[in-house]
């Protein structure tokens, strides 16, 4: 996982303001949760229920097909796992030790 580049205090805008709107994509939230989310493409039906329900836009989709997880932002909340309809589930949370 690539690392977010942290700025020095001299480089910050006054008052903690955010001047470049929509910059939240630059903020790494993927390292908040020590657990990891994995996707099993062999069972996935590309129903995209995970994509609809993910609160962090961390399900990557191309041409109406799921193509993976955005590890830089995924907080491993588990909502996508909950809604995934396949049996067995096509999304799985693996614990820190295993990851």
């Amino acid at each position, binding site marked *: 996982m690539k690392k977010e580049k*942290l*700025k*020095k*205090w*001299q480089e*910050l*805008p*006054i*008052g*903690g*303001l*955010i*001047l470049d*709107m929509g910059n939240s994509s630059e903020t790494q939230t993927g390292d908040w949760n020590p657990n990891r989310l994995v996707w099993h493409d062999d069972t996935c039906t590309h129903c995209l229920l995970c994509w609809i329900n993910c609160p962090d836009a961390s399900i990557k989709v191309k041409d109406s097909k799921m193509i993976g997880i955005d590890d830089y932002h995924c907080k491993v909340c588990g909502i996508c796992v909950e809604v995934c309809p396949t049996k067995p589930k096509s999304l799985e949370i693996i614990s820190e030790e295993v990851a």
Partner: protein
Amino acid sequence: MEKGTLEEKKSKRRVSLTGDDAIAEAMRQINPHVVAAYPITPSTQVVESFARFVADGLVDTEFVATESEHSAMSACVGAAAGGGRVMTVTGSQGLAYMFEVLGVTSGLRLPMVMAIANRALNSPLNIHGDHSDTMAMRDMGWIHLYSENGQEAYDNTIQAFRIAENPNVRTPVLVAIDGFQTSHMVETLTVEPDNLVKRFIGEYIASYPMLDIDNPVLYGAADRPDYYMEHKRSQLVGMINAPEVIQQVGQEYGALTGRYYGLVEEYRMEDAEHAIVVMSATAGSVKDVIDQLREEGVTAGLLKVRAFRPFPAEEVAKSLSRTKSVAVLDRCGTGGAQGGPLFLEVRAALYEEKSPPQVINYIYGLGGRDLPLRHIKDVYLRLREIARTGERGKLVDFLNLRE
């Protein structure tokens, strides 16, 4: 430096006003975009008089009579972030109730001015003057200016906008006067012409106003541990730049009005061996006592601290290093510290001196307790005794306390 025009000099007015009304008069001339306030004794009169100016159409200000001080400061934050020139007025419990939002204002670097009529904090409930309210917020990132009388309250209110809005400072400023002693005392003071004040404060140019919808900006984002310290360090820049700006604004104001201001004011300090350090109204009484004592051969002097935050440590040390004994008068309790807040600062400022004077601390005037001149005289006599014998005695004591 710019001087007032002849026309303006002729239209100076000498008027009799209470300290509260002196501030209200400055506010009328400043004509802020937004004033949000919830009146509290002893600054109520500022809000009442200003509300009348609004009702009479003498100002263009959007006056927001909020339901509490917490709301007042919150409204001020919104208005200032929106890009307005903003002011509020409070003190004591009202200031305490604003506490949560005070750090938001300074953390967001919103240039705003707050007038305070200093008043004791509960309990016991007390509506009279002391500095425990503003001293409780001394580290909230606001610049503190303390005023000796109504004239200074008027002058400081006007200068405060120039200091707060300076691009290198961008930090909120509070202007304090002593509750009742100054807020309700009628004094004759000089009110400058409206156009001079208008020209002096100038047009306000907000940086990153939220109402500039073509350039959207986010105020009040959250920080995790990886950024909070960097933001707090960058906030300090305003404080570090403030002393120079406070002095420069004080000089410029002096050139226009004849009344010059600095970080501190010295009174008969050139050859003083015994000095009192104090803020606000009591400085006036101390000056009177000094004049009497000088007649009696006591080399007494005064160092009045005008800017308490940022604390002018260098100026204080320089002024006091020539003395033999110093008494710092704090109008605020110690709260379990080694002394009052002013005392702690002064003593720390003298630490680097090779042969510092003996420094003692007196707590005085809590909850409006009077400080008769004879008590101030006693302080000087004790200072002379300390210098003579080298015996400091009690470090922290109370003035005019029954015991």
